[in-house]
């Protein structure tokens, strides 16, 4: 337990001490938040209604998908996991600690976003804090799980960028952050239901902000939680200690199984 706490402490400090990690954990989501709050609300006052769920979802997606996989791949390429293995650091700790510390950083950032949105920009206050926090935890779990899986199955840092963008860009464009799901063409809206951000926005709006849902919000929460757990489980199963030693328990393509809950999400109504 002492070792786990030490490891957690160190990893948490890395998220602040490392320039790239600090940028992705704090500067990027908060900078984007302030830019959107100052500019977008001025251009489109209706944006204020969804400022909190949009920016919280954006912060989670951006920090995890852009911030978690790359350090995991780099650590494997640099032989850090070899050192860890020799010294008895469990694979589970190697994967779960970055996920937990990322969630802690997200909690801090999302608290800043929520409090600032309310106090500085007069954004609507969540009507159901339990639903809001529960949705936050669900999307944080889903996004960190997927990000850890991307870091595990990517053969190189170049591929990490590609895999991350395959999820991040559609999430930004179709995932309810820029255009509500209900305003998308029906086919596009259904396809968007495969994205974690679509389910996050659906659940945030319905369970936290008291707005109407595009489809079953608790179904979205279940899909997010199941997707996150499945992705994390697959990451543990497919974990490889060493980029020079390609032996692992299964093909990286097994990682695609993590999409299953989200594919089921297409059928939510």
């Amino acid at each position: 337990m002492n070792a786990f706490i030490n490891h957690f402490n160190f990893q948490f400090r890395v998220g602040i001490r490392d320039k790239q990690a600090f940028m992705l954990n704090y500067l990027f989501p908060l900078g984007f938040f302030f830019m959107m709050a100052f500019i977008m609300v001025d251009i489109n006052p209706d944006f204020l209604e969804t400022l909190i769920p949009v920016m919280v979802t954006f912060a989670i997606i951006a920090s995890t998908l852009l911030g978690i996989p790359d350090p995991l791949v780099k650590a494997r390429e640099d032989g850090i996991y070899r050192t860890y293995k020799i010294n008895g650091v469990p694979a589970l700790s190697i994967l779960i600690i970055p996920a937990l510390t990322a969630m802690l950083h997200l909690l801090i950032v999302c608290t800043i976003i929520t409090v600032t949105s309310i106090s500085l920009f007069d954004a609507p206050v969540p009507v159901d804090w339990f639903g809001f926090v529960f949705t936050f935890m669900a999307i944080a779990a889903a996004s960190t799980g997927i990000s850890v899986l991307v870091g595990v199955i990517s053969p190189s840092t170049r591929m990490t960028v590609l895999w991350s963008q395959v999820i991040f860009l559609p999430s930004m464009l179709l995932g309810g952050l820029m255009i509500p799901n209900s305003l998308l063409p029906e086919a596009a809206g259904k396809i968007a239901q495969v994205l974690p951000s679509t389910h996050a926005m659906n659940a945030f709006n319905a369970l936290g902000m008291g707005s109407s849902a595009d489809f079953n919000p608790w179904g979205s929460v279940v899909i997010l939680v199941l997707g996150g757990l499945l992705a994390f489980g697959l990451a543990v199963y497919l974990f490889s200690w060493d980029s020079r030693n390609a032996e692992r328990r299964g093909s990286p393509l097994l990682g695609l199984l993590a999409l299953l809950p989200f594919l089921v999400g297409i059928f939510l109504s």
Partner: protein
Amino acid sequence: MTESIIQVKDFRKTYGDFVAVDGISFDVKEGEIFGLLGPNGAGKTSTLESLEGLRDLNGGSMRVAGIDPTKEQPKLRNLIGVQLQSGGLPETFTPDEAMKFFCAYHDVAPRFDLLDRMGLEGKRKTQYHELSTGLQRRLALALAVAHQPKVLFLDEPTAGLDVPSRVELHEMMRELQAAGTTIILATHDMAEAEEMSDRVAIMLSGKLVTIGTPMEITAKGAGLTKVSVRTKNSSLSNSGANFPAVNQHTQKEDYDVYFSTDIGPTVSAIIAHVEAQNDTLIDLRVERPSLEDRFLEIATSGGTK
């Protein structure tokens, strides 16, 4: 130094069709410094990494301190220490954090004194990527020995170190040996291997071509002993004298240099010749073939000599 602490039997390691290690066997005795030598691609790293539990075997068996490294990793981790060749630590780790981190996983108290001993006393709060190569290697060694392992694996431990650091590291290796630690030393530095190792094994193309003390291995070679002689009146230089067992004679600066297959008769004859010429011996140096000479001989012959 009688009990074997490492036993390797018919060890084989392949990567696809490529055979990296082809059925090697050797023992390492408790408390000895064992040098593992070989050119790049000889199979040293595969052997070391398998002993460290980092790779599975494709044949044969291994025991390290009575433990099967492929099947009993959790037991192995407190018995071995490994100083890896490069990197291996997060860039933002400070030496203090690294010591605390790994000692916690080994369930022992942090050995900050080792950091001071390794010359890191002013750098304990400096991030790993800001340390010089030498200090990074010293940190890696301090971390490798902090939990007092029974077997210590050193992979090119002095690469990138300056002379005082090398001397300090060698001194530390001797101290660890005196305290009962067995050291497996993989190095390209033949002088280091010859000076530090009780026994060495030379690998070539996945096979173990020779094993023994450095003296035994050099003695097996066809290498010639070099005898360099300098006299007051240079009576040897133009004498045309033939000395027994001498294969070759050259001159370098003020020295006459003879390459001998049998040092005793050669030196006796040279001294007798100098005295007979009423000359005076100023300097006489005898250089036996080094481990490096023998290693080159083995490597160039493909292991047949």
